[in-house]
C-alpha cells in the first residue's frame, strides 16, 4: 500500500511519499517520513519492508557523507545512484534488501535528475517514476499531463492530481502524503497533504 512517486521539473525535482506505517491491518503512525535527505542536494524516497527501508537508506546516507569527508567534495547524483545500485546488487544473491528507491538530486553542472532504483538493482535515469500500488494511478496521470520543464506550480498541481486519484481509487488509500523538493537551494520539505491529523508532537 506504500506510494512513492516523483518527477523532474524546470530546475527542481519533486519526490512524494505516503506517510503511513502499517502492520497487517493496524496503522501505527500516519506521519512517518519515508523521504530521507541524503545530503544538502539529494533526496531518497524509499518504500519496502519496515527494517530494510530505514536501515538501507541510513547506510547509503552515511556512506555518502563519508565520501564527502574523505574527498572534500560531495558525490554527484549519478554517482550516488550508481553506488546505491551497486550495494543492492552485491547484497542481492546473499541477503537481499526489499527496498524500492527514487533518488532525486540537483547538480550545479547538470541540473535536476531523478533515478529509479528497483529492489533487484534495476537502475534508470527517468523524468517521472512511481512505486507501489499508487503507481497504477499516478503513472498514467503523469504520462498524460507531464511535459518537459514544468514550473513548480504546474508540478505541484500534477502531484495533487495524482494524490486525489490515489485517494479516490485505491482501496486502502494512505491518508497523508509528504512532498519534498530539491533544487539549487537544496533539499527540503515542501508540503504535507493531510486528511488525518495525528496527535500533536510536544515541543520537547
Amino acid at each position: 500500500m506504500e506510494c512513492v512517486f516523483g518527477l523532474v521539473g524546470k530546475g527542481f525535482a519533486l519526490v512524494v511519499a505516503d506517510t503511513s506505517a502499517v502492520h497487517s491491518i493496524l496503522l501505527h503512525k500516519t506521519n512517518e517520513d519515508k523521504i530521507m535527505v541524503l545530503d544538502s542536494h539529494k533526496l531518497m524516497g524509499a518504500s519496502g519492508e519496515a527494517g530494510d527501508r530505514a536501515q538501507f537508506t541510513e547506510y547509503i546516507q552515511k556512506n555518502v557523507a563519508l565520501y564527502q569527508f574523505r574527498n572534500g567534495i560531495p558525490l554527484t547524483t549519478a554517482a550516488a545512484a550508481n553506488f546505491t545500485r551497486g550495494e543492492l546488487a552485491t547484497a542481492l544473491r546473499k541477503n537481499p534488501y526489499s527496498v524500492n528507491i527514487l533518488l532525486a538530486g540537483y547538480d550545479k553542472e547538470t541540473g535536476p535528475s531523478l533515478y529509479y532504483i528497483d529492489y533487484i538493482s534495476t537502475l534508470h535515469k527517468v523524468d517521472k517514476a512511481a512505486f507501489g500500488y499508487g503507481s497504477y494511478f499516478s503513472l498514467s496521470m503523469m504520462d498524460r499531463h507531464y511535459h518537459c520543464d514544468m514550473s513548480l506550480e504546474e508540478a505541484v498541481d500534477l502531484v495533487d492530481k495524482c494524490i486525489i486519484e490515489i485517494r479516490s481509487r485505491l482501496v486502502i488509500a494512505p491518508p497523508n502524503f509528504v512532498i519534498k523538493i530539491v533544487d539549487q537551494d537544496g533539499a527540503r520539505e515542501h508540503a504535507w497533504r493531510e486528511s488525518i491529523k495525528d496527535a500533536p508532537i510536544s515541543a520537547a
Partner: protein
Amino acid sequence: MFGGATLLLYVTGMKFDTSGLESHGLLIGTNNELLSGLSTAPSFDIPSTTDFDGFQKEAIQMVKPAKGTTTLAFIFKEGVMVAADSRASMGGYISSQSVKKIIEINPYMLGTMAGGAADCQFWHRNLGIKCRLHELANKRRISVTGASKLLANILYNYRGMGLSVGTMIAGWDETGPGLYYVDSEGGRLKGMRFSVGSGSPYAYGVLDNGYRYDMSVEEAAELARRSIYHATFRDGASGGVASVYYVGPNGWKKLSGDDVAELHYNYYPVEQTVVEQVMAET
C-alpha cells in the same frame, strides 16, 4: 416416531404440518434474484471452500496480530504512561496469569514485552547491559533514541531467523519523554502512542478516543488501565493483571496492578434485578 405421530394425527383428523421438512433449495449458490419478493428464509453466499468453519477461523487469524498479549504506551504532558496485561498463552492453554510484561531496563527506561517471552526478556536484559556500558564509557546516560536504535540494530541482524519481539522502549532523557516501537522485523518507529499485541486493535480504540495531550497523571493512568481492561475483555490471549507504570523526570514508578476480572465488576457492577417469580417453599 414420525410415522406414529402421523398416524395419530390422521386418526384425529388434523393435517400434520410438514413445512419444516421441505428443503428450501436457497442455501447453496442458487440465484437469489429469481426468488426475491417471495417469502424465503434469509440466506447468504457461502465461500467456495470445502472446510467452511476452518476457513472462517483462518480468515480471522490471518488479520489478527500474532503476538498474544496487549501492551500500550503513550506520551502525554507529564511523561510516559506504560501498561500491559499479564497472560501467557500457548495456543488455547493459558500457561500463566502473572507474567511481568513490563521490563525495567534501568531506573529511567522501560521496555514492554510482546511475542516470545524468552526473546523479549533476554534482549531487554542485553539492552540494559549495553546501556550501562554506554554510561560508563561516556559518563552520561544513554538517550531513548540511542537505546532503541541499539535494540533495533541487533534485531535487524537476526531478521528472518525466528525471533519474535514486539516491544516499546519508553523513557525520560535530556530531551524529555521518549517512546519508540521496535520489532523483530527490524522496524523502528518514533511516536506519541502505540499498542502492540493481539489485543492492540481493541486497546487502540479506547486509547485513541480518550487521549488528550494535557491529562493529569491520574487521568492518564485510568485511560491506560481502561484500555488494557477492554482489550482483555475481547481478546482471549490477553488477561490476568493490568499493570500501569509511569515514567517521569525522576524515572519510572509502578502505579497499579489490578486484576482485570475485578476491574470488570468495578466498571460494570452487577445490578440487583427485580425478582419476577419466587419459587415457593413446599
